[in-house]
């Protein structure tokens, strides 16, 4: 079968672009948080250089095979999620493999990364890491409910589970799902807060209590790899949300604008909010976001 060279090119470039965009978003967030706290913050490329520094570290410590592979799990998950999300609508280059998978598959592949990470943290033997993982998983159960409710509502409303069909249905401005089923969007965005792990729900990596939680035992190239996968993963989740709710992106510029707008929501709420305890965050997710989710489904039912 002849190889569609454009597709192969797209498969190679997309993760790199995703990394670059993800890292710049990281840099921008640090600047914005600094500005809000009335200070100037580091240059935009600061995150990029941190990662480069980590990769060039002399000694790398690992506590066994599982910890060695943990960042690999993480980055595989983020790249695979990226491949199965149509980054730019019709272009052969940037739709990658999204024809092969669908929404439910994406729901699960997002968990694959965090599970791999958790195993690595487990092997490192650091109790703080283990506590962080237990908090992370409990919180995950919390925000999965509204997120699934939102996804189910959309799937039923549009009678498809494939992302590309969803994008096709949102061809012009007023057909965006954000308007067609607002409650689903609300529930999904609140769940998104939990996914990103910024301030109100950052009990997982609570720096003060459990020394940055799960990644506490990771250093050198492992930490670097984790940071890269984290940025790619953020970008992948953002494109996923834009595809579902904002009708995907025709070209690169609209993609950046939409994703950055979405990205600002968790970042800004993070800056102004203190930290929830784990059961508080779980209770929070099961309260209003779930109500919105149920409302979204009920609307579809009638």
């Amino acid at each position, binding site marked *: 079968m002849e190889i569609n060279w454009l597709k192969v090119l797209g498969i190679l470039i997309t993760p790199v672009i995703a990394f670059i965009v993800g890292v710049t978003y990281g840099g921008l967030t640090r600047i914005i948080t600094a500005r809000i706290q009335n200070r100037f913050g580091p240059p935009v490329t600061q995150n990029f250089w941190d990662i480069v520094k980590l990769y060039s570290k002399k000694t790398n410590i690992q506590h066994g095979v599982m910890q060695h592979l943990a960042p690999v799990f993480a980055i595989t998950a983020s790249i695979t999620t990226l491949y199965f999300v149509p980054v730019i609508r019709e272009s052969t280059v940037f739709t990658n493999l999204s024809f092969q998978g669908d929404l439910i598959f994406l729901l699960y592949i997002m968990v694959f990364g965090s599970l791999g990470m958790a195993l690595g943290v487990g092997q490192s033997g650091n109790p703080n890491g283990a506590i962080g993982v237990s908090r992370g998983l*409990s919180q995950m159960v919390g925000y999965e409910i509204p997120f699934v409710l939102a996804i189910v509502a959309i799937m039923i409303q549009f009678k498809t589970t494939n992302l590309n069909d969803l994008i096709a249905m949102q061809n012009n401005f007023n057909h965006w799902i954000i308007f067609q089923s607002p409650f689903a969007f609300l529930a999904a965005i609140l769940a998104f807060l939990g996914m990103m792990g910024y301030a109100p729900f950052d009990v997982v990596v609570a720096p003060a209590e459990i020394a940055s939680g799960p990644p506490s035992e990771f250093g050198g190239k492992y930490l670097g790899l984790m940071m890269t996968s984290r940025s790619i993963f953020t970008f992948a989740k953002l494109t996923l949300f834009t595809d579902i709710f904002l009708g995907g992106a025709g070209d690169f510029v609209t993609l950046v604008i939409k994703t950055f707008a979405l990205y600002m929501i968790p970042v800004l709420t993070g800056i102004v909010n203190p930290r929830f305890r784990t059961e508080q965050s779980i209770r929070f997710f099961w309260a209003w976001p779930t109500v919105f989710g149920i409302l979204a489904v009920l609307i579809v039912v009638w």
Partner: protein
Amino acid sequence: MFSISGIFITTFVSGLVAFLLHHSVPKIRDWFSIVIMGVIVYAVWELPVKANLLSFKLANYNLVFGNTEYGRLFALIVAVLGFFAILYSKDFMEGKPRLGYFYMAFFFSIGGMFGIVYSQDLISLFFFWEIMTWSSFLLVIYCCKEAQKIGLKYFVFSAIGAYSIMTAMVVLYSSIGSLQFADVFAGFGKMDFWSQLLVVVLLLMGFGVKSATMPLHVWAPGAYRITPSSFTAIFSGALSKMGIFGIGLTLFKIASATGFYPWVQEILAWIGALTALFATFYAVFATDAKTLLAYSSIGQLGYIVTGLAIGTPLSIAAALFLTVMHAIFKGMLFLATGAVYYRTGTTDMTKVSGLIRKMPYTFLTALFGIITVSGVPPLAGFSGKWMLYESLIQSNHYFLVVVIFFSSTAAFLYLYRYIFSLFLGQEEKETENVKEVPWLMRIPMLLLALATLVFGVAPGLLLHPVSAAMKYLGDFGVTYQTSVLFNEWGNKVDMLTVANTIGVVFIIVTIIITIKGYRSTRYVTTKDIHTSGEVPTENENLTYAVDFYKPFERALGSVLKASVDKIYNATGRILEQSFDYLRYVYTGNGQTYAMYVVLFLTILVVFSELIFGIKL
């Protein structure tokens, strides 16, 4: 040898021979059972699919045995899992007492399961159902004094289940006149409403006990924990499938002919979903690994019951696919826990930790196990879960989807806890000299792990027999290719591309990260960690094992207090006391007995008009 009677005879006779042989040279006994089981697996595979292979008349009922596609699927599960368990138990049971008793009960329960799966009429099904029950009972009480109460509870619950099937059979016989599957399925539609309802409820209850659906699951955690691990794999892998086999038959062959079928489906679906939900909650807070796995398998059975209850072709395919997968990964996980028990002597998660470096193969099996159970893509669990969700969404069971999804995400919690507390974390002092389990125990575990990978990449291989079985149930067709799954709306997921992408990316990045600075990466023991200053001493184990999900528990709050178990124990005690008062009727005084006789006579005379309808 390759007829049905051949299979039955070899299984039961080899059970007896194993019992008699256990005094002789152990070498023969173990290999004898392994060889026999291998022959049986081949025989089951070869058995032609014909409805009436063996039948004999017995006091105006005739018992018919035949092999149907649906039966063949379950028979294969039983045979293959049985073979692996026997292979595993050769070393696992080394040096344990009463080995002959163990092998006899083992073979009898497998024979019982074959009987159920191959029977074509209710009497033979009930006959072998009872054999399966009491032989598995013998294995539940096998180990120790503490097992007696649990065994008794198991027997009483299975007796309640079996006797509800018996009552259903009696009702069917009195209104249809024959208990052959063909006549029952045909004649069921003509029965009056109330007896139809009664029969369906009784059959579902009877089969529900064995597949541990919620209100009747109370026996399962104790029974799974106390049976020797090699049989627990069969117990949860194959025995519970007999319940599913029965529920499948009742739903699609019997209940579908009735008017209230949609109601039955709806209620059963919700029962399955709630079973999954509550079982997962109990699993999260279990401290013993086997109890955790027991609740987890109750949860998985809940999914299968929901799948069957939904009734769309895709959901039945999902249910049957998950049945086979459940047998595989539950078998795997119980064998892995058994390996841990074999080496460390305990399965209490708070006592054991850090076994990964000493038991790598067992860790690998457990890893594959939890990935499959959690339904994460590359492995087979995902296809089952995917089909289940698609079918739920397409058949407009919205809130059911959410409950199922909630319980499957909560499944991550206890799965992580299982592998973390047993294999990861810091090494225990006592488990210093633990070695990997012998090869004969590793082979079944690794083969099962391989199976999850193979079916993960190409679910079509398993969907082929599953769709054949579905044809027997009620000619439901489902479209599939060897590695691409479709749902009713035409969306698809290509497992091959998924596996390829994950595989390729994984290998490339592993190569990069291992090569980059290979020399400078240093292995350090788990004691050498950043603990802000105070370095942990040698015998101090910092693994966080106790109260692992305390915050989650606080979030759930009082939901966990409600447990059906308390109610059952209370009823048992009250009944026992009431029987106590009853026997005081026998006062021991001869004269009172004489008084009873005269009283009886006078009552008969005085109330004769009432009793005999004749005026004095």
